C-alpha cells in the first residue's frame, strides 16, 4: 500500500501539485439476508484501489484507479493533475487549507469476534431461526432478516508527510416482520428499521442483539398494529424513542451543520443549510438542556462515525455543536475551516471507498444524556404519544421543515403507557422543535445508534454515521399531518 501511495504522491508533486494526498483502500464486505425462512442475498465482495487528490494552480483534481501497477498509479496521478488544471479554468480564488500536522500512525478499532471468521452457516442459521419465530405469529405475511459486515483496511499518505494506516470493522444486523391485512401494510423492525443496529464492532454486536429472542414480539406488534388506534391529527406532547431521536438528530442537526452545505457546495443536489455563518455562537438552536456533540473519538463509543483520523489526515475530535441550547460548531474540512477563518479542521472528511473524493460527513452526532429515568419521564407526562422506530423521513433542502413517521406509538395518559397507536407521525420546523425539548433520559437509556445509509455528494456516496440518543420529550408538536386527507 505504501509503495502505491508514494508513487501517486511523487508523480503528482513532480507534475506540479502544491499539495497531494492518496488513499489506498482494501474493503471486504459480507451481506446476508433471509426472507420467509429462505436465504435471499448471500454475497461477499472485495475491492482494492487508490484515489489521488491534488491541488494544482490553486484548484482541486481527483482521480482513482484499481490498476495498481507503477504505470497505472502514475497515470492516475497524472490524470488528477490534468483535471486540476482544467478546474482552474473556472477558478475564482486559490484553494486554502487550514494548517495541519503530519502524522505517522497505525490504528485499529477494538472488536472481540471477527465476523468473517464466524462460519456463514451459523450466521444464516441465526437469521432463519428469527424468521421462523416471526412467522409463528399468525398474521405475519413476510419475515426478513439481515446481517452485514465490512472490513476497511486503508492507508492515507500526503505530501506534507503523513502516513496513516487504519483498519475498521463494521457489523450490523436486524429483523423485520410485515403484516398485510385488509387494505393496510404494517411492519415492525428490531432493533431498528433499515437494517437494524450497526456499529464499529465485531460479531459480538450481533450476539448482543439477541434477534431470535426478540422475533416473536416483533411479529406480534406488526399484527397488532392493524387493530391499533389511528394517530390523531393536532398538536401534542411527544416522546421519541432513542433510535427515532437519533434520526431526528441526523436530519435536523447533522446535515445542516455540514459546512460544505452552508457554503453552497451542495446547492444542486443535497441542498444548502439554514445555518448561515452569522448564526454561529448566536442562534438558540434548542432549549437549555440540549447539548449535542460531533465526536469521532473512540471514547465516545464504537459508532459508525468513529475513527482515529479522518480521510484528509486530521485527528478525530469532539466538537461541541449545541451547547446549552446555543449553536456552537460546524462539521468542517481543512478547506472549509480555512474559508470561514477557523484555525483548524474539525476532522470530518470521509470517503466511501478508494474511488470517491473525501467530503464533509457526519461522524457521531450525539445528544448528551439528560437526567431523567425513563419511568420517571413517563410518570411525569400527562398526555402524549410515545413514537418509536422510524418508518419514513423527509426534510426540505435547507433543513427547516421536516416530517417523520414511525412504525409504532403508544398513548401516554396520566403518567402511564396506554393503547397502541398506528401510523404515528409528526412534523415541524427544526429550531422550534429543538427549543420545545423539555426532558432527556439519562445515560442508562442512551444508545449510540448506527445509520448505515446516509447519502450525499455527486457521484453519490453512502456513509455510516453514529447518533447517540436516549428518549426525549417535546412539547406542542404537530402530529398526524402525514395521514391527513
Amino acid at each position, binding site marked *: 500500500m505504501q509503495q502505491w501511495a508514494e508513487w501517486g504522491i511523487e508523480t503528482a508533486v513532480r507534475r506540479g501539485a502544491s499539495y497531494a494526498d492518496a488513499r489506498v483502500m482494501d474493503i471486504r464486505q459480507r451481506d446476508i*439476508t433471509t426472507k420467509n425462512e*429462505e*436465504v*435471499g*442475498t*448471500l*454475497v*461477499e*465482495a*472485495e475491492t*482494492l484501489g487508490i484515489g489521488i487528490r491534488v491541488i494544482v494552480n490553486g*484548484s*482541486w*483534481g*481527483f*482521480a*482513482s*484507479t*484499481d*490498476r*495498481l501497477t507503477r504505470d497505472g498509479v502514475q497515470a492516475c496521478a497524472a490524470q488528477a493533475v490534468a*483535471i486540476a488544471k*482544467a478546474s482552474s*479554468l*473556472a477558478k475564482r480564488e486559490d484553494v486554502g487549507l487550514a494548517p495541519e500536522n503530519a502524522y505517522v500512525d497505525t490504528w485499529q478499532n477494538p472488536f472481540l469476534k471477527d465476523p468473517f471468521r464466524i462460519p*456463514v*452457516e451459523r450466521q*444464516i442459521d441465526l437469521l432463519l431461526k428469527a424468521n421462523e419465530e416471526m412467522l409463528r405469529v399468525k398474521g405475519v*405475511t413476510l419475515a426478513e432478516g439481515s446481517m452485514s459486515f465490512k472490513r476497511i483496511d486503508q492507508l492515507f499518505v500526503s505530501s506534507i508527510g503523513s502516513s496513516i494506516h487504519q483498519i475498521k470493522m463494521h457489523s450490523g444486523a436486524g429483523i423485520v416482520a410485515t403484516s*398485510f391485512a385488509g387494505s393496510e401494510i404494517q411492519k415492525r423492525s428490531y432493533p431498528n428499521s433499515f437494517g437494524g443496529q450497526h456499529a464499529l464492532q465485531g460479531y459480538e454486536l450481533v450476539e448482543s442483539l439477541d434477534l431470535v429472542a426478540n422475533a416473536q414480539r416483533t411479529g406480534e406488534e406488526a399484527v397488532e398494529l392493524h387493530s391499533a388506534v389511528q394517530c390523531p391529527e393536532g398538536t401534542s406532547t411527544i416522546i421519541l424513542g432513542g433510535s427515532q431521536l437519533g434520526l431526528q438528530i441526523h436530519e435536523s442537526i447533522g446535515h445542516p451543520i455540514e459546512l460544505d452545505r452552508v*457554503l*453552497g*457546495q*451542495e*446547492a*444542486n*443536489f443535497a*441542498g444548502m443549510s439554514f445555518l448561515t455563518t452569522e448564526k454561529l455562537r448566536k442562534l438558540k438552536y434548542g432549549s437549555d438542556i440540549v447539548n449535542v456533540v460531533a465526536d469521532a473519538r473512540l471514547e465516545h463509543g464504537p459508532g459508525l462515525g468513529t475513527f482515529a483520523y479522518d480521510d484528509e489526515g486530521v485527528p478525530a475530535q469532539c466538537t461541541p455543536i449545541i451547547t446549552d441550547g446555543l449553536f456552537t460548531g460546524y462539521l468542517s474540512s481543512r478547506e472549509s475551516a480555512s474559508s470561514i477563518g477557523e484555525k483548524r479542521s474539525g476532522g470530518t472528511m470521509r470517503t466511501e471507498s478508494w*474511488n470517491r*473524493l473525501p467530503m464533509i460527513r457526519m461522524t457521531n452526532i450525539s445528544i448528551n444524556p439528560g437526567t431523567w429515568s425513563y419511568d420517571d419521564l413517563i410518570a411525569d407526562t400527562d398526555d402524549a404519544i410515545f413514537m418509536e422506530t422510524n*418508518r*419514513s*423521513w*423527509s*426534510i*426540505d*433542502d*435547507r433543513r*427547516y*421543515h421536516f*416530517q417523520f*413517521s414511525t412504525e409504532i406509538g403508544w398513548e401516554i395518559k396520566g403518567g402511564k403507557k396506554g393503547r397502541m397507536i398506528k*401510523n404515528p*407521525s409528526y412534523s415541524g*420546523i427544526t429550531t422550534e422543535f429543538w427549543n420545545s425539548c423539555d426532558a432527556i433520559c439519562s445515560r442508562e437509556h442512551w444508545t449510540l445508534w448506527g445509520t448505515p445509509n446516509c447519502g450525499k455528494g455527486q*457521484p453519490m456516496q453512502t456513509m455510516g454515521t453514529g447518533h447517540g440518543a436516549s428518549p426525549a420529550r417535546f412539547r406542542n408538536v404537530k402530529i398526524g*399531518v*402525514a*395521514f*391527513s386527507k
Partner: protein
Amino acid sequence: MAAKAKKSRLKRVKGAGNVRLGAHVSGAHFSASDLEDIAESILKFSEADETEVEIDSTVEALTRFANNTIHQNVAEQTLNISVRAVLDGRTARATTNKIDDESLRRVAASAMSLARNEPKSPDLLPMLRQQKYHPVAHFFPATAAATPMDRARAVTRVCKMAGANKQTAAGIFSTGFVQTLLTNSKGLLARHDYTESEFSITILEEKSSGWAKANSPDVAEIDPEVLAASASRKAAASREPRELKPGHYTAILEPSAALDLVGSIFYDFSATAVMDKRSCLNDRMDRKVVGENITLWDDVYHPLQLGAPWDGEGMPRQKVLLIDHGVPKNLVYSRASAKKMKTKPTGHGFTLPNDFGEAPMNLVFGGGDSSVEKMIASTERGVLVTRLWYIREVEPYEKVLTGMTRDGTFLVEEGKISSGIRNFRFNQSVLAALSNVEMLGPAVRGAGEEAFEMVVPAMKINNFHFSEVTKF
C-alpha cells in the same frame, strides 16, 4: 463456454502488472477481449456445478461546480467482477476488482464456499443457455472521449452567464462509459457497452432558485447553456416568493416532478412484491385503480429509454403493458417468480441471489398533447412545480408519499404564473394523484433525483395535497 480463451490472453491476467490494456475506445479501462479473458479464466478456475460471471468496466468523470467555480473534479476507473456459483441446488455470489490469477481463483472459490454453507434453494433454476437479444445502441464515441477540459469549458460558460446575471450557479457535468459482459458456464454470452452524460444546474438568487437537468448517452444532446438559461429564468421569476396557505390545489408537475412522484410505483409491479404482499397492487390487479388516461409500459427498447436488453440472469427483456387505461394488467417476472406463479418470465429479474425478485426498470408513460403552457393557461388557480425533493413512502398500500417542492414553485392564477411561492410539503397518494390527472403533456425522457429515469409527461393533477409550507 462463452468464448475460447486464447493462450496469450489468459497469460495476461496472471498478474495485474502483466495486463496490457488494449482499449477499443479512447481512455478505455479494458478492451472487450480483456473482459472475455477474465471471464474465461474464472469459468476455468471454478469448480462449481454452474458458474456465472458478470463484469462491469467503468470509466466515469464528473465536474462539480458551485458559487460559480469548479470545486470538485473527479475521475474514476473501476472494474467489478461478480461471480455466481451454483452447487447442489444452492447459489451465492462473490465479487472482486483484482485480476491476478490468485484473486480470480479466490473469487470463484469464495462464491462456491458461500453456496456450500447455505440451505438448498427450492426456487433455483438451471442457468440459461445462449439467448437471442434485440440489439440496442447506446454507445456514442464522442461521449466516451469527452475530456476534463471539455466539461470545464462548458461549466465556465454557464458560470460566467450566471455571474453576468448576478446569480450563482451550482451543478454537475458528467460523462462516462461502461462495458458490461455477462457469461456463464452453460454458454450464455451477452455484452452491452454504453455511454452516459448528464448536466444538472441550480441557479440561485438571494431568496429563490431555479433548476434544470438532462441526461443522454450522447453528450451532443446536452446543451448546458440552454439548461442554464432555463434555470436562470425560474430563479428570476420566483424572486420574493409569497407564502401560500397549505391545502388542496391543482398541481402542474413538470416532467422531472412527475417522474419523481410516479417513479415510486415501479416495484409494485414486481411479481415477488405481490407474492410477498408488500405491493399496492395486492387484490387490485384487473381493477381500475387510476384514471383512464393513464397507460404505462415497461420498454427497454423505447427510443428514449436506456439499459441492457437482458436481465440479471441473461433473460431477454420484454416490453410489458403494466397499466392499460387505468387498469393494472400485468406484472413483471423473473424466471423464479414466473415458475411460482405459473406463467412466463418477462426478463426483469435482478442478479441472483436476491430478496426482491424483479422490477420494471424502464417505465414509459403514455403522454398527451398538452404543453405545460397549455396547462397553465387552462388553470384558474394552481401550483406549478419544477421538481420534488426528499420523497419518502408514508403508507405503502395507498401509496402515500411525502416530500417537498424545490427550486422553482409558482402560483398560477387566471391562466398565468402570478408569482413564486415558498416551498410546500406534500402528503399525497400516488394512486389518487393518477386518478386525478386532467391533462398530460408529451412523454419525454425525464431526469430527476429521486427515481430512475423514465419516459414521462408533464401532468396537471387536480386536488393535490400540499400539507404544510416551509420558510423559503
